[in-house]
């Protein structure tokens, strides 16, 4: 194989792709697009939550059992009001008065302590017709009412400290062991989730997208060569193996650059999260470091198969159909992502680490979720399997490529392919 010719093919293919608008848009537009979408979603979510918070948080309480401790209520504008955790609870003497205020929209809900409460424990929660039943989820009113009822029931019957513990038996203080083994409190759950799940997920999706995108360029370039009928001109100057290698390297470089741009977005998020959670969680630097290597190996393996198969198609549409099977195999880890994120080092994760189609994505996800659970020999072994598979696929691929590249019209039978590829 003549390196300079391979280089010439690679350079031409690389420049042909990177000068396209679609490539530039995908490379630089995707991070912006994702940022805009994420920003919009988060912004909308925040807006609606704020709106919800601004909604009436006044509740009515009707004490038909006559057991509620009224000492916590204070008189305001002729009414008895208990303020707790930004909620205001108004005590009504009759159910009708409370229902009227509920219908007028002044109250969000009315709670009625039924007459037989002591024997049944029943407290009726009434919402207005306009309020969705689910809208009460996430509010703190019901735990507060429980505390109030407990206080009312035990008031004066127990020692004050015991009474306090009956009302509030436990305040859970969340803490966890950080990467350095120290106990840390005050963990932000959202950021924790981001680092532990979102980063591996994004990294995996970006790796897969870059792999399929670069492979897609390969399919496209073979179709272009065949449709523009330049194949014979190329083959009278360079060997099919040189064309195959040149296309693989040239378009691989374009794909690698695209992946680098996209990964930098993940790195940026990781660094931002790291600043907030440095002592709590470790950033998956290992996964980020091996990602380019896994991309290159995965791409060379998948790409050589894609090129050979695409060459058998008579046109772009047919080539895409023929190569779809390889893409589906590569997507497999994404299909079982929930299992991989939940149990990255389980049997499924371990098996998929050794299958060349699934290993790049699986290894990345396993390393990103919990790098301590994957042994170094598994990472090196997966790369070894990928290297071996790439060697095999490129040898078979080059032969099929030679046969397929010159084909026009109908596709040959498998027997004919075998005969010509020998």
């Amino acid at each position, binding site marked *: 194989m*003549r390196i*300079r*010719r391979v280089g*010439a*093919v690679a350079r*031409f293919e690389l420049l*042909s792709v990177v000068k396209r608008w679609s490539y530039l848009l995908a490379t630089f537009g995707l991070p912006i697009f994702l940022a805009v979408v994420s920003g919009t979603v988060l912004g909308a979510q925040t807006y609606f939550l704020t709106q919800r918070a601004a909604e009436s948080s006044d509740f009515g309480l009707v004490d038909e059992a006559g057991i509620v401790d009224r000492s916590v209520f204070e008189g305001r504008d002729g009414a008895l009001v208990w303020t707790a955790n930004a909620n205001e609870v108004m005590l009504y003497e009759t159910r009708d008065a409370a229902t009227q205020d509920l219908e007028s929209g002044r109250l969000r809900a009315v709670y009625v302590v039924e007459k037989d409460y002591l024997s049944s424990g029943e407290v009726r929660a009434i919402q207005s017709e306009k309020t969705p039943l689910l809208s009460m989820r996430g509010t703190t009113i019901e735990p507060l009412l429980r505390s109030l009822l407990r206080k009312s029931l035990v008031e004066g019957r127990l020692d004050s400290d015991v009474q306090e513990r009956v009302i509030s038996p436990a305040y859970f203080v969340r803490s966890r062991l950080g990467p350095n083994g120290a106990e840390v409190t005050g963990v932000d759950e959202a950021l924790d989730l981001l680092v532990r799940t979102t980063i591996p997920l994004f990294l995996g999706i970006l790796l897969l997208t870059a792999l399929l995108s670069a492979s897609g360029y390969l399919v496209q370039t073979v179709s*272009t060569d065949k449709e*523009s*009928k*330049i*194949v*014979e*001109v*190329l*083959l*009278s*100057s*360079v*060997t099919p193996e040189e064309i195959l290698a040149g296309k693989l390297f040239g378009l691989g470089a374009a794909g690698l650059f695209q992946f680098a741009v996209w990964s930098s977005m993940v790195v940026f998020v990781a660094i931002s999260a790291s600043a907030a959670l440095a002592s709590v969680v470790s950033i998956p630097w290992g996964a980020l470091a091996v990602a380019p290597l896994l991309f290159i190996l995965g791409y060379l393996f998948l790409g050589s198969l894609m090129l050979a198969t695409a060459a058998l198609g008579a046109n772009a549409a047919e080539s895409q159909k023929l190569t779809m099977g390889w893409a589906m195999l590569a997507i497999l880890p994404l299909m079982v992502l929930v299992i991989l994120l939940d149990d990255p080092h389980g049997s499924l994760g371990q098996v998929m680490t050794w299958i060349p189609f699934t290993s790049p994505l699986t290894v990345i996800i396993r390393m990103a979720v919990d790098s301590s659970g994957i042994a170094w020999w598994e990472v090196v072994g997966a790369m070894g399997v990928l290297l071996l598979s790439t060697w095999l696929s490129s040898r078979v691929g080059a032969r099929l490529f030679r046969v397929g590249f*010159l084909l026009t019209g109908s596709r*040959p039978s498998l027997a*004919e392919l075998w005969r010509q590829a020998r």
Partner: protein
Amino acid sequence: MGILAYRGVSKRFGQHTALEGVSLEVVPGEVFGLLGPNGAGKTTLIRIGLDILRADEGEVSLFGASPNSKALDRTAYLPEERGVYRRARVRELLGYLGRLKGLKRADARNAADHWLERVGLSRVADQRVESLSKGMTQKVQIAACLMTNPELCVLDEPFSGLDPVNVALVTDLIEERRASGRTTVLSTHMMHQVEALCDRVALIHRGNLVMYGELDEIRRRYSPHEVIVWTGTDLVALGVRATQHEAGAWRVALPPSATPAGYLQELVQSGVLVDRYEPLVARMDDIFVDLVGGGR
């Protein structure tokens, strides 16, 4: 020794036999005409010679050895199915094809500029190929083929789609190659171009070689034993087996033993005033139709 030689070459595609035991060779410095009707096997023969396809049987040698990368660098090929990257710019495309033939980047760029000048396309060097007319695109392809000044150049239908001015340009380029000792294989259906350019020809029909040799010798071989005599004398009145060819000209069938020169001498000696005298030589069009027309 042939620069490109085939010995007993056969090629089959499934049940279809594309070539059957073809043997011929192209010698250095000549313009070799590869003729045949559509689907005769010419393109397959060319592809095998340039190692694009492999023969099922027989041997091929290019520059004295089996076709290999080094030999291919000394050749160039203009296929009948024209191929270009339509989105590429003209200079960029030529530079790339030059690089594939082994030119260094600067040399490829210089050669591209030189050949665009030669074919009169300098002004479109920075345009995309898709913006060019069919004829201009064809000239770009011819420039790409000749830009490395290859020792062997295979041109498949180089004149199709060209206007008379550009046909003359390409004809001149082929003549130049012959004058400088370069070899050209010309596959064309334009028989008058074959007559004007080729030194030797081969005719392939249904995968078989049906005619092969020196152009002049073949034309003589297939010529009728007749002459055209321009004279004011009524030859029929003199008892000659002649028919009126055109005003003042007679088409005369020679006796089997007579030669054109001997017969001219006889006419002059018998007192006929000969204005002009020409032995009839078969046209390649007629030979082609005679050889392949029967079975079509």
